[in-house]
């Protein structure tokens, strides 16, 4: 097992006075998929958003403890959240392509981070990202068409292409398939498999079957705590905590 890409130790998150995340310790491995499962409102998405400091946009949110990327604390005052988010990308639950052309959608990230030295450079980056997201063949003839004109599954793959265009080392996915039909879901899961050969993927999911199919490590969240964290196989076949077992067998959540 490769060294941890992201490590969280004694992580606590407060929304105003509400203690949302309590003493969480997780390790995200590199070149693998980690799944966060748990019932609604247990804090999975909140914790996920801490990993790329998206919670900074919420005024009442405070994060305590340490979250490190490659050993460096991401909440250190010297860290620029904007640069961090180029290295830790995010895909959201509902596909949200920009109301611009497909090309501009994918090109936006590399452009603002100055990753392309010329127009042809930028075209290459965009093509690369669209290929890795397994959507190139479907859109290569209409890169100028608006991104919002695609189907749901295609839009989500476009959003994934947009996120990976900045060559992130980690990709955070917040229930990426919950708004999609089974076939699109299958395509995205294949995509996740492929991506995980090169980067770390963290996926929050409501579907235990999806977690079982896709991930190597799973963390079970319940009421803001990580109740159990370990190899996916172990969690699903031989959970140590009774709460984990209740959730997996469908008695809670």
């Amino acid at each position: 097992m490769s060294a941890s890409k992201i490590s969280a130790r004694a992580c606590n998150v407060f929304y105003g006075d509400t203690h949302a995340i309590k003493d969480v310790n997780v390790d995200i491995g590199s070149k693998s998929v980690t799944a966060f499962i748990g019932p609604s409102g247990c804090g999975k998405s909140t914790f996920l958003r801490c990993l790329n400091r998206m919670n900074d946009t919420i005024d009442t949110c405070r994060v305590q403890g340490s979250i490190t990327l490659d050993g460096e604390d991401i909440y250190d005052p010297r860290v620029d959240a904007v640069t961090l988010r180029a290295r830790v990308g995010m895909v959201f639950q509902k596909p949200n392509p920009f109301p611009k052309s497909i090309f501009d959608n994918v090109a936006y990230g590399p452009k603002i981070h100055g990753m392309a030295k010329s127009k042809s450079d930028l075209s290459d980056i965009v093509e690369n990202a669209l290929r890795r997201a397994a959507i190139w063949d479907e859109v290569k003839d209409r890169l100028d068409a608006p991104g919002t004109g695609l189907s749901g599954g295609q839009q989500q793959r476009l959003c994934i292409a947009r996120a990976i265009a900045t060559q992130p080392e980690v990709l955070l996915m917040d229930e990426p398939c919950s708004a999609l039909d089974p076939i699109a879901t299958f395509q995205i899961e294949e995509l996740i498999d492929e991506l995980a050969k090169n980067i770390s993927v963290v996926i929050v999911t409501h579907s235990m079957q999806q977690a079982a199919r896709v991930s190597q490590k799973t963390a079970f969240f319940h009421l803001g705590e990580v109740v159990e964290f370990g190899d996916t196989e172990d969690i699903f076949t031989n959970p140590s905590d009774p709460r984990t077992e209740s959730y997996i067998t469908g008695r809670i959540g």
Partner: protein
Amino acid sequence: MTSRTTSLFAANPQMQRRKRADRRFRIYGLAAILTGILLLAVLLGTVISNGLGAFQQSYLTLEVELLESKLDKTGNRDIEEIKKVTTFGYDPLLTAAAEQLIETHNIQTDLRAKDIAKLLSKSAVSDLRDFVVADPTRIGSVVSFDFLVNARVDGYLKGRVTRESVADDKMISAEQLDAVDQLIAAGALVKRFNADFLFGSDASDQRPEAAGIGTAMLGSLAMMLVVLVLTLPVGVAASIYLEEFAPKNRLTDLIEVNISNLAAVPSIVFGILGLAVFINVLHLPMSAPLVGGLVLSLMTLPTIIISARAAMKSVPPSIRDAALGVGASKMQAVFHHVLPLAAPGILTGTIIGLAQALGETAPLLLIGMVGFIASTAPETVGEALLAPNTALPAQIFEWAKRADPAFYERAWGGIIVLLVFLVAMNAIAILLRRRFERRW
């Protein structure tokens, strides 16, 4: 359980009552709409019937001999010498032309040529002089000229002045009206479209026939430009700050509440502010469209800020999240994504704010733009901004105050012009809003 014995089809009293109430409500609604439409029709009908006359004016065609002996005694065609001849010097030329007129058209009258010349507007002589000064080569020839007739004659052609009203009128006599009738029959006196109303300047009390709204329109235009240039950037910047960067504390709340309050402040208060700050402290020129524009900007700014905030709030947060997720900074997210999507809403709000500012008179009162006689049109951009001028609604108000009923017609004409602008601006705003709606 007991089973229902009444059929679904049976009428019950509740249903009847409900149906009657529905019908009553529909009738009230219809009556309200019809009342509104009726009032609107009355308004438009009154405005149009009273104001259309202002767009037509009566002209008398005279053949004027530009006698060299009167206009250019030296014969050098020296422009400075020619300019020295005042309008008094041109009077005899007009009298001679009037005499010629009587002969040519065989007018049967006891009046002398001088009395016929009095049918002309008092601006006739200066128009003639302007013509000669502009083109001295015409001296010595006979020129056919269309002169404005005075307001009473014009009123006769428009129905304001009648044979009955003439009895008490000192400005015109029944004999003059007889002559007028004959001139109309001869085709020398006609009523036609008056472009000078739209493009000319205001005139003195004694010459309503020469009064135009053009200069006032330029004043309004200059002010609108100032308002646009000042309120749009400042308003958008303020709303971006309040939306994205202001900390959520009581000070920010206070600012927001006060902006909403400012939008409701009576406009004359801004006029007083303009007088106190712009004129007394900053010593900006009085009656200048620049100052008027500054005052109107203060008045319009809260409206722009409020509509810009609303437009930006209507952009779905998912777009902002997506931009941030890809590593955009807050400023990049706002300028690359939120603003372009909010732009149509901001534009619509700006146009509506400008339309409101266009119709404001009270704030201009204290800075000197109401009651100013705009008799010369500005010629350069600098003049347009800094030379004293008036505004469309102020001009209308000014005309409505004057004694001569001919000015009353002009005021209505001005109202038509103002309404055309307002309707056009609001129509553009609505078109823009429809066109850009729901782009995502």
